[in-house]
């Protein structure tokens, strides 16, 4: 009787579902499309037998180990899932134990509180089960191509030979690098695959049909059972594709060990381990990443249970990780009664709690931008690509500034409390009347140097590598210190000047200067909005090393004709620029 009440409640509550609950774990089965071939079968068998619960933390895995013959026949599969969720036994009897178990595992501490204080403890679990039934998915992996690294190298080698042959036929000369055979450094496998994620359509009508015509338990009269078993065998469960990727690639290539200068071939055992263990795991990891990024039902959401320190009752059970990004939202009701969510801040996971057994434990979050947050605000997982674009203006009073304007591509935040960043920058600057002393013969080492002083115009291009940390000063994380260190290489190009003596194009020697500098500073940053921040970065720059080469030297030979230059011999402007104070204003866009 209890099951009838449960099912009736499911149907009733489906239609009246309005309350946003906590994150409800989707249920997902994983299968692979059957394919001929040893590699395909080995991977498919592993996918069917592996327990991916550590990889797919945020889902309840439905362990149906059945490769499917076709991409289109799903009603059989849907029935298997129904049998699993409603715990069908060998006597064709259904019960709700399994789905209530899933619900109990997925329940939040508020839901546990309500459940524990209710006369009917299963009521709240039934509500969770209702939501869960709307989130039943079938994942099908479709392997397209599996090859060993040996096959991959063979293919590349054949291509190389064919290309060289073609070049020779056309009378060309094969370059030295193309004459060498492909180096076979790795062993392992490469795999191309696609996947489809289908959602089972558990509509109220379907559930009603299932309950009325297929459900059997100990209370079902004997004479009804045969018909209901027959009905269940004919049950058609539809599904819709909610996300698919047609072409993904995964590879596991491991370095071969060397003996006497030669690569040692791997053992069969090593190869099997990759094929049946790490490759399937890689496939599932890639698939999971794509699903979490693109299917909203797989994104975690919850509420802030406390603020400053910000905490939310999610953890390892939901598969959250350090430095995952969450947006905090406030629910706002407008005058016309319409409600909307307004973003109020950005949080990063700071420490993850193990809540497998105790759902009252909360993970710590650090706010990094936004307005004041309060408990009860909703937080939604939002993938952080950890990419930053910085637009920098560098101002220096020194005669030479290697990069007045620069653009940086950065990565971060990494690390915990203080977020670490790394960035690559490209900069440009112009200069005028820069006093520069050089030997017009370029023969610095020959002992016959004849120094000329010129005051050319020109420009510099620079590349740099920056390391930085953001140390958040305020509880809302809007203001932060930004200690940073960078090394840069600036390439100076001198241009001709009308009315001056030098005309580099007519001379054999045109100086081209490369300067390496290091900068250290402590910046101050401010989040204008959580994804846009502005910095003021005062820093001290030190030009460490300079060498000069001939820009008019168009020989293709590899001889290095550059000369290291002494700062004292390069003129006053460069001497003054050796130590400089650089003020940088940056605008950062974080995605």
């Amino acid at each position, binding site marked *: 009787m209890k099951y009838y009440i449960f099912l009736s409640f499911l149907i009733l509550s489906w239609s009246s579902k309005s309350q946003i609950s906590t994150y409800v774990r989707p249920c997902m089965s994983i299968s692979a499309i059957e394919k001929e071939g040893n590699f395909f079968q080995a991977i498919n068998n592993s996918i069917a037998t592996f327990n991916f619960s550590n990889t797919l933390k945020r889902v309840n895995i439905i362990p149906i180990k059945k490769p499917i013959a076709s991409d289109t026949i799903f009603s059989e599969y849907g029935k298997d899932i129904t049998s699993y969720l409603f715990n069908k036994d060998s006597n064709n009897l259904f019960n709700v134990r399994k789905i209530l178990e899933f619900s109990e595992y997925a329940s939040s501490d508020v839901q546990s509180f309500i459940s524990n204080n209710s006369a009917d403890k299963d009521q709240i679990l039934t509500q969770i089960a209702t939501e869960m039934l709307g989130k039943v998915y079938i994942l099908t992996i479709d392997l397209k191509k599996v090859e060993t690294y040996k096959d991959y190298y063979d293919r590349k080698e054949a291509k190389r030979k064919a290309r060289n042959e073609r070049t020779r036929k056309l009378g060309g000369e094969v370059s030295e690098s193309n004459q060498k055979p492909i180096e076979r450094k790795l062993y392992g496998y490469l795999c191309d695959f696609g996947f489809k994620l289908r959602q089972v359509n558990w509509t109220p009508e379907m559930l009603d049909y299932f309950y009325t015509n297929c459900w059997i338990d100990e209370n079902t009269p004997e004479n009804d059972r045969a018909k209901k078993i027959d009905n269940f065998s004919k049950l058609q469960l539809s599904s819709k594709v909610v996300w698919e990727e047609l072409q993904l690639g995964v590879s596991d290539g491991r370095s071969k060990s060397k003996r006497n200068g030669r690569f040692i071939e791997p053992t069969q055992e090593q190869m099997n381990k990759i094929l049946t263990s790490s490759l399937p795991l890689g496939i599932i990891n890639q698939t999971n990443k794509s699903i979490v990024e693109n299917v909203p039902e797989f994104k975690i959401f919850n509420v802030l249970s406390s603020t400053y320190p910000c905490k939310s009752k999610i953890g390892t059970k939901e598969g959250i990780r350090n430095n995952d990004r969450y947006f905090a939202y406030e*629910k*706002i009701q407008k005058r016309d009664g319409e409600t909307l969510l307004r973003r109020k801040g950005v949080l990063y996971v700071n420490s993850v709690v193990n809540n497998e057994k105790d759902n009252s434990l909360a993970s710590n979050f650090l706010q990094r931008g936004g307005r004041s947050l309060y408990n009860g605000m909703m937080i939604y997982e939002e993938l952080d690509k950890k990419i930053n674009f910085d637009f920098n203006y560098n101002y220096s009073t020194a005669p030479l500034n290697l990069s007045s304007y620069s653009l940086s591509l950065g990565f971060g935040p990494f690390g915990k409390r203080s977020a670490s960043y790394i960035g690559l920058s490209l900069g440009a600057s112009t200069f005028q009347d820069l006093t520069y002393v050089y030997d017009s013969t370029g023969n610095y080492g020959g002992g016959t140097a004849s120094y000329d002083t010129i005051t050319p115009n020109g420009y510099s291009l620079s590349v740099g590598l920056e390391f930085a940390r953001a140390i958040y000063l305020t509880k809302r994380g809007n203001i932060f210190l930004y200690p940073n260190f960078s090394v840069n290489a600036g390439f100076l190009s001198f241009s001709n000047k009308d009315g001056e003596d030098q005309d580099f194009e007519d001379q054999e020697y045109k100086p081209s200067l490369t300067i390496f500098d290091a900068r250290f500073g402590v910046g101050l940053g401010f989040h204008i909005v959580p994804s846009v921040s502005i910095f003021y970065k005062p820093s001290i720059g030190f030009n460490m090393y300079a060498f000069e080469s001939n820009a008019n030297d168009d020989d293709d030979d590899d001889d290095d004709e550059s000369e290291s230059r002494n700062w004292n011999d390069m003129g006053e402007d460069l001497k003054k620029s050796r130590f400089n104070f650089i003020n940088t204003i940056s605008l950062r866009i974080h995605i």
Partner: protein
Amino acid sequence: MKHFILPLCLIFTFLSFSQARKKANKDTKNWRYEIEGVGQGSMGTYLVKSWQYSKKPRIALEQSKKNAVHGIIFKGYPSSKGVIGQPPLARNPILDEQQKVFFDNFFANNGQYMKYVNLTADGTILPGDRIKIGREYKIGVVVSVRVAALRKDLEQAGIIKGLSNGF
């Protein structure tokens, strides 16, 4: 002068906090809250969600316990979403005015009402139960109220009549 700044700030903070609390208490007395049943409570308890309005969200959390008990005594709650509604314990609509002294003490801060109420673990709010409406917050908190004990104590104090008195 600077010796006065810190004490003045403290006094100002205390006063504004007290004002917010007074405002919340006034809202309760003016029946400016809502309660709804969220489940059939276990023996002798009601499981309710009390919704309160406040400009200060933290005050609203504290107020939720008071509102839940107040609501069960004076308002009751209707049936909804499979939860059977309950009438108020007080059948006399002007009981709060007649027993003003008793209820002022009963609902004083940290008053007797605290005995009968149990907040969810640490006042965690369910997603969607914190809504900003204009300049105010409407916050719903799930609370378990020991109604049997509350009824018994109110009967013993002579505030409400026992169930048997009606027959």
